[in-house]
């Protein structure tokens, strides 16, 4: 009896195990874990409208500070210099500066038809890439993930919406393959289009894969591109938004078994999250406009302006020393100019007089006429390679850094303009825009002949650096 009872229990137990294998219990959807949707930028879009006195031909744009319909941006807090904004029907402008809470400036100036009070819209499109990450809850073989993103009411008209994201034509959807999940390209469908009607008001993105699926696998799904192309437009402020608070929107991630209709089927796993957008924080700093001018001496035996320097100069003097007859002597200085003035700068030069020996009977070293015998203080200069029979004092220039305009260019010499001869200062270096440490060598050259009276000769050269106006 005892033996019969024991074998009965064993048989019942085996039957139970077989029945459990044949008729497994129903499973229920689990939560995907650690679900995140990271926006490339949490900046919201801008949807405002032009206000009088904005006028065509002007670069100043005023905005309404009260909402109206889809125009819910009522402060320039949502804009920053450099933003590309659409004003009016089609034209795009770049914001140059934010004047105050309801005014900014653009370039180019407003075209006719883009400055109508109350009717011309101003749109800035924020296009953040979205990166959805999560860990799978179950191993669904060769199924697909669906991501639903809250859509705007007019969710595919390529302008910012105030109730969700705009589809913007068709964003790129990609997924990174991991063990157990070999993804094909994602499929994006705008809210309301075939296959994306339920739940309503969500854009749909499907990421199909082959593979066994893995429990706890880390998945990365990406919607949009880093450069903003093929990317959904972030919402503009919602109608009920309180200033300086974020607008939150829902997104849903589902994992379906292969062949499921995502509009009606129950997903294997599901999770819901929120993404928030807010105006950018505008950080400002002031850089004062200025111009900086430096002069430095250059040592002897240096190669400058295709010449070798014979003397060491300082910032304030070019001491040529003892001159040999019919022999060149060279000294060089380095001039550096920087300015953040938009119109650039120029440097002029003038000497007080020829190199002079103001003894009882004054004598002068002449200003150079170059080899040609015809170079002038205001011309482009010319070659001066022969010291004999071409005595004089002159200079040439050579660029050390940057791309300034110089006159004369290296190899061409000319004399300095002379204040004593009532000549105006001549421009030697200039630049038509912002300049960062543009440096030039000024190479002075001198030669004397046997007719030059002995003595100490000196003069004074004045360099003047000013911004252009």
């Amino acid at each position, binding site marked *: 009896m005892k033996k019969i009872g024991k074998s009965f229990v064993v048989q019942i137990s085996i039957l139970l195990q077989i029945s459990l294998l044949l008729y497994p219990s129903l499973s229920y959807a689990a939560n995907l874990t650690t679900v995140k949707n990271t926006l490339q930028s949490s900046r919201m879009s801008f949807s405002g409208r032009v206000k009088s006195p904005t006028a065509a*031909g002007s670069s100043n744009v005023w905005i309404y500070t009260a909402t109206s319909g889809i125009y819910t941006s009522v402060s320039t807090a949502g804009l920053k210099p450099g933003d590309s904004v659409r004003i009016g029907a089609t*034209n795009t402008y770049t914001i140059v500066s934010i004047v105050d809470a309801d005014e900014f400036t653009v*370039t*180019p*100036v407003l*075209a006719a038809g883009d400055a109508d009070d109350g009717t011309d819209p101003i749109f800035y499109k924020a296009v953040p890439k979205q990166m959805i990450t999560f860990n799978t809850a179950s191993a669904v073989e060769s199924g697909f993930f669906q991501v639903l993103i809250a859509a705007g009411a007019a969710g595919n008209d390529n302008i910012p919406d105030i109730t969700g994201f705009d589809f913007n034509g068709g964003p790129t959807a990609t997924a990174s393959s991991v063990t157990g999940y070999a993804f094909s390209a994602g499929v994006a469908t705008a809210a309301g289009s075939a296959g994306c009607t339920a739940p309503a008001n969500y854009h749909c993105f499907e990421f199909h894969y082959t593979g066994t699926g893995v429990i706890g696998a880390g998945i990365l799904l990406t919607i949009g591109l880093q450069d903003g192309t093929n990317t959904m437009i972030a919402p503009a402020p919602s109608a009920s938004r309180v200033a300086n608070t974020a607008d939150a929107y829902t997104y849903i991630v589902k994992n379906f078994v292969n062949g499921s209709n995502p509009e009606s089927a129950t997903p294997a796993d599901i999770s819901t999250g929120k993404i928030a957008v807010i105006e950018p924080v505008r950080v400002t700093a002031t850089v*004062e*406009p*200025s*111009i*900086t*001018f*430096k002069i*430095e*001496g*250059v*040592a002897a035996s*240096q190669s400058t302006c295709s010449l070798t320097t014979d*003397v*060491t100069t*300082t*910032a*304030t*003097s*070019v*001491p*040529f*020393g003892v001159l040999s007859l019919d022999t060149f002597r060279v*000294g060089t*200085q*380095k001039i550096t100019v920087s300015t953040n*003035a938009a*119109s*650039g*700068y*120029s440097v002029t030069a003038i000497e007080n007089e020829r190199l002079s020996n103001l003894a009882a009977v004054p004598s002068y070293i002449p200003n150079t006429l170059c080899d040609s015998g015809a170079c002038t203080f205001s011309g482009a200069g010319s070659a001066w390679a022969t010291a004999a029979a071409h005595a004089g*004092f002159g200079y040439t220039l050579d660029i050390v850094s940057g791309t300034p305009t110089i006159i004369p260019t290296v190899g061409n010499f000319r004399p300095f303009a002379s*204040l004593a001869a*009532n000549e*105006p*200062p001549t*421009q030697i270096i*200039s630049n*038509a*825009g912002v300049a960062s440490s543009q440096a030039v060598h000024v190479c*002075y050259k001198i030669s004397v002949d046997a007719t030059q009276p002995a003595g*100490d*000769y*000196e*003069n*004074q*050269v*004045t*360099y*003047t*650096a*000013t*911004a*252009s*106006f």
Partner: protein
Amino acid sequence: MKKNIIYLLLLLPATFFSFFLTSSQVSAADYGMSISPPLLRVHIKPGKSITQAYKIENLGLSDKTLVVSIVPFSEADNFGNPLLNPKTSASWLSYFDLANSQIKLDRPFTISAGSFEQLVLSFTAPIDAPLKDIYATLMVSTYENTLGQTFQGTALRATIGSNLLITVSSEAFPNTILKIEDFSPVGSGFIKMGNLYFADSITPVKFNAMVNNEGNFLSETRGIFRVTTANNKPVHLEGILPVNVIAKSKRQLLNPQGQSFEFAPSLGRIGLHKVSLEIKTDNSNTTGTIEIFFFPLKLSLGLLLALIIVISIVKITSGRSPEEP
């Protein structure tokens, strides 16, 4: 001990060599000066005064003795560069003064190395001041009156300047007379017949333009460069770089990047187009317009050349007499 001597012998030439390799060609005793702001534009009524603070910084390694002066300037070229002549004088120079207690115009003062000084410049337009523009430069120059007895060579004087564009007028927007001149395409990619230009429809066209201020007051170039179709539909818009055009002077017009205006048509951009420059000032507008007919010149020439080659080949081959058997 012996070892140390060997090390020392090895180290000395190495030190000597490295000293020569690393020695700089530029001397340390330098002049470095900075002024801010570099440009000031003022509109003032007769009988009123303004003051402006300037920051002068000595970036050099030694103390500098400087002198501040005001010098009139005129335009040096079409690019906004001033021509200063220290010898020129003007009655309105007396309108300027420095409000600093220690620093006065044309009197030397010293700035320590690495430090800065603030200059407070005041400008007072007398009630009977002539209604016109005043263009001057605040010059800060090095000051030296102790050249050595034995000095020979060239002594250097350095000046840094800030430009002042001052309009003395009773009106908020005095009359300005701007005229656009020399507005035309540049380069070789076009043909001119009468007043009409013909240009290739796949070659970018650059445009040159000047603005002439014939008025007595400074004006700013704010406006737009526009290319439109014959139906006045804009196909290209570009801003104009805002620059100051002083009275009775000319200035080159450029795009906001400081370059010449440029329009790059496309292959399908065929037909008559208007290219216009519109400048708007506070009380006057001026427009310059030229007409360009775009057509596929290069493409047509290519096709024509191909056609000539094909016809030539056909003619040559058909003109050959049949070979004798």
